[in-house]
C-alpha cells in the first residue's frame, strides 16, 4: 500500500471515530453541546464573584470576563484532552476489534474533538462577552489559535504517555486526577505572569500550560503583551512527550489484550 493511499484510509478511519466520539461525548445527554459550556461558565462566574468580593481588578488591558475566559479555556482544554486521551484505549477497546483501527487513531480522534470543542467554546464565550460590552475585537487571532493548539498538544502528548502507561497498570488512571489538579493553580488562570514577583514567575514559567494561557491573552487583547511567554520551551516539552508517548505506545501495543 502506498503512503498516500495509506494516509487516505487512515484519515477516513479517524473521521469515522471522530463522528462516533462526538455522538458518545455529546449525544448521550439531553443538553448535548451545552455541557461543554457549563464548566467554563461556572468557573468564570465563581472567579467573577471572588474578584468582586476581594475588590480585585483584572491585569491592565483586559476586561474581567475576557481575562477569566482566556485563562480557563486553555486550561480546561489542556486538562480535558489529557483526561480523555488517557482513557482513549480503555473506553474504546471494542473498536480495536477491527484490525485497521489502531490505538493511535483513537488518541488522534479524541485530541481533534477536544481542540475543536474548546475552540468553539472560546469563540462563543468571547462572542458573548463582546455582545454584553457592545464590541468584539480579537487582536491577533493566529496567536490565539497558536496558544490553544499548544494547550491541546500538551494535553494530547501528556495523555498519550499516560494512556500507554495505563496499559500496564490501572494506577495511572487513578493518579491522573490528583496529578493534574495543581495545574489549575499554577497555570495563570486567574493571574497574569506580568504581575508576579520575579522569583515566583521564574518558577511558574517551568509549567508549559502557563505559556499557552499567556499567548492566548496576548492574542486576544490589544492592550496586553505576554512579555514572558515563550514558544521554544513548550514546544520542546510537547516534542519530548510525543517521543516518549509514541515509543511507549509501540511497546504497549504488544501488551494490549482484547477480551
Amino acid at each position, binding site marked *: 500500500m502506498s503512503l498516500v493511499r495509506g494516509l487516505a484510509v487512515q484519515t477516513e478511519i479517524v473521521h469515522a471515530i471522530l463522528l462516533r466520539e462526538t455522538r458518545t461525548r455529546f449525544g448521550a445527554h439531553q443538553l448535548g453541546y451545552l455541557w461543554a459550556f457549563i464548566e467554563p461558565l461556572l468557573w468564570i462566574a465563581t472567579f467573577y464573584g471572588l474578584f468582586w468580593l476581594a475588590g480585585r481588578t483584572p491585569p491592565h488591558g483586559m476586561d474581567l470576563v475576557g481575562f477569566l475566559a482566556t485563562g480557563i479555556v486553555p486550561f480546561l482544554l489542556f486538562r480535558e484532552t489529557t483526561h480523555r486521551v488517557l482513557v482513549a484505549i480503555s473506553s474504546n477497546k*471494542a473498536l480495536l476489534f*477491527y484490525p485497521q483501527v489502531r490505538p493511535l487513531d483513537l488518541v488522534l480522534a479524541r485530541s481533534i474533538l477536544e481542540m475543536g470543542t474548546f475552540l468553539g467554546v472560546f469563540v462563543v464565550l468571547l462572542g458573548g462577552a463582546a455582545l454584553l460590552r457592545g464590541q468584539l475585537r480579537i487582536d491577533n487571532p493566529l496567536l490565539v489559535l497558536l496558544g490553544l493548539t499548544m494547550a491541546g498538544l500538551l494535553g494530547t502528548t501528556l495523555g498519550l504517555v499516560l494512556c500507554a502507561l495505563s496499559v500496564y497498570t490501572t494506577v495511572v488512571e487513578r493518579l491522573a486526577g490528583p496529578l493534574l489538579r495543581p495545574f489549575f493553580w499554577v497555570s495563570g488562570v486567574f493571574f497574569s505572569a506580568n504581575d508576579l514577583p520575579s522569583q515566583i514567575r521564574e518558577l511558574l514559567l517551568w509549567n508549559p500550560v502557563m505559556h499557552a494561557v499567556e499567548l492566548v491573552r496576548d492574542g486576544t487583547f490589544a492592550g496586553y503583551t505576554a512579555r514572558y511567554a515563550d514558544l521554544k520551551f513548550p514546544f520542546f516539552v510537547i516534542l519530548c512527550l510525543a517521543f516518549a508517548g509514541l515509543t511507549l505506545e509501540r511497546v504497549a501495543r504488544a501488551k494490549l489484550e482484547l477480551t
Partner: protein
Amino acid sequence: MIELRRITKSYKTEKGINVVLDDVSAIFPKGENFGILGRNGAGKSTLLRIISGVEMPDYGEVVRKGRISWPLGFSGGFNGSLSGEENCRFVARIYGEDIDRVVEFATEFSELGQYFHMPIRTYSSGMKARLAFGLSMAIDFNIYLVDEVTAVGDKRFQEKCRLAFEERQARSSVLMVSHNLKTITQYCKRAAVLDQGKLTFYDSIKEARLHYDA
C-alpha cells in the same frame, strides 16, 4: 490466503507463563472452508485474533492476501451506548462501504426489528452475534473469521447463515474456530486441532475427530 509463519504467543498468569501458541506455521488457502477445533481455553480465539491482526504475536508473522474480516464472535466490536444502526454505520465507514446499503442489509439479515435502533447494551449475546453476522455479510470479505458465532440463535437463523455462506462460496470462504465438532462439520471438509500450543492438520473431519476425542 492466510499464512502463519512460526507464530508464538504466551500469556503471563499467576502460575507462570502459559504458551498458547507454540511455533505454529500454517497455510490456509483461499476458497476452502477450514475448521480449527480446540477445547475451551486452548487458544482458539487468540489464534483468530492474531490471524485478523487485532492482536500481535510474540514472535512470527502473518501474511494475508485478500480481504479478511474482523473476528466475528459474541463479544467485542460494538460500542454499548450506541445503537445497532450507529455501530453498523461506523463499520461501513471504516471499511469504505456504502453506508446506506450496509445498514439496510444488516437490518434485514439480523432480524433484530426495533432493537436495531436501541443501544447495544440492551442486547442479549445472541442478538449481538446476529448483528455481527448480518453486518459482516453486508461487506464482501474473501475470508470470514468466525469464532463460534454460527452456533447462535435458533435453528432457522443458523440455517440462514449456512445458506448465506453457501451462496457466496465462489468468492468467500470461512475460517472457523469452535469447540463443537458438529458446528465445524456443517461448514468444513477439513479441520485442524489446536492442543497445547500446537496445530495439527487432518485431511478429513473424521481423522480430526479421532484426535480430538482421544
